[in-house]
């Protein structure tokens, strides 16, 4: 958690006001974590950087993550993806697309009864692995992957 916070703060480093607010003790780091967009992770250009950015650099494979996506997507601009986790105490899910220019697509935190179950639609620039990362309450990360073949890309112009 500490490492994630540091990366996050480094990403937000340009905003001096934020740093000053933390220094003055106005904001607890945990509140900053909740509020600040994780620029480092979202702007990482490769999957390794993106995983590291969300703190999941060493996530282990886990069959408890259910990742549903089409085998072949005709339109890469709209690829329906369903992620759910059967791992006990899953508190967040993140979805990444390996070959996209910016692999991290989204990250969601669940609380107060929300199930770790997420449906969304993604853009895939080309045929790629889609990866789902689950984080548990004790700070462990797990990952599942599935390849989606794309016939028409969704990121070009």
């Amino acid at each position, binding site marked *: 958690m500490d490492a994630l916070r540091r990366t996050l703060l480094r990403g937000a480093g340009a905003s001096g006001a934020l740093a000053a607010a933390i220094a003055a003790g106005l904001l607890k780091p945990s509140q900053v974590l909740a509020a600040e967009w994780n620029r480092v992770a979202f702007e990482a250009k490769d999957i390794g950087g993106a995983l590291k950015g969300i703190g999941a650099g060493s996530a282990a494979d886990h069959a408890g993550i259910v990742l549903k996506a089409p085998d072949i997507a005709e339109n890469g601009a709209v690829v329906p993806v369903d992620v759910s986790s059967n791992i006990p105490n899953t508190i967040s899910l993140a979805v990444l697309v390996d070959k996209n220019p910016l692999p991290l697509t989204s990250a969601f935190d669940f609380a107060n009864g929300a199930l770790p179950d997420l449906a969304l639609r993604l*853009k895939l620039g080309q045929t790629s692995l889609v990866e789902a990362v689950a984080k548990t309450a004790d700070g462990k990360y797990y990952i599942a992957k599935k390849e989606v073949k794309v016939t028409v890309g969704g990121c070009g*112009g």
Partner: protein
Amino acid sequence: MADPMKIRAQMKGDTAEIRVLMSHAMETGQRKDSAGNTIPAHFIQAITVDVGGKRVIQGQTGTAVSRNPVFGFRVKGAKVGDKVVINWVDNKGDKRTDEATISA
């Protein structure tokens, strides 16, 4: 101001199924217009979902979420009549909040 979201929230057993359609261009910042100029990125960055006055989901999104994003969530322990409030904020600071009521 962006168009309203379409929110559907329905109980299935003890779990509320929430689906939301947001109206947003979700520009990636990778595309170019016909003159060859890069179209600046414009995308939703943060989403929150409150059910019955409690924050149940908060998320961050990047440019790879499809145009006019659709999300599906499931919330256990919600009740018919609970208010669902969904909010998004994009990278230009535009925001939108809409609400719906969970139906049976």
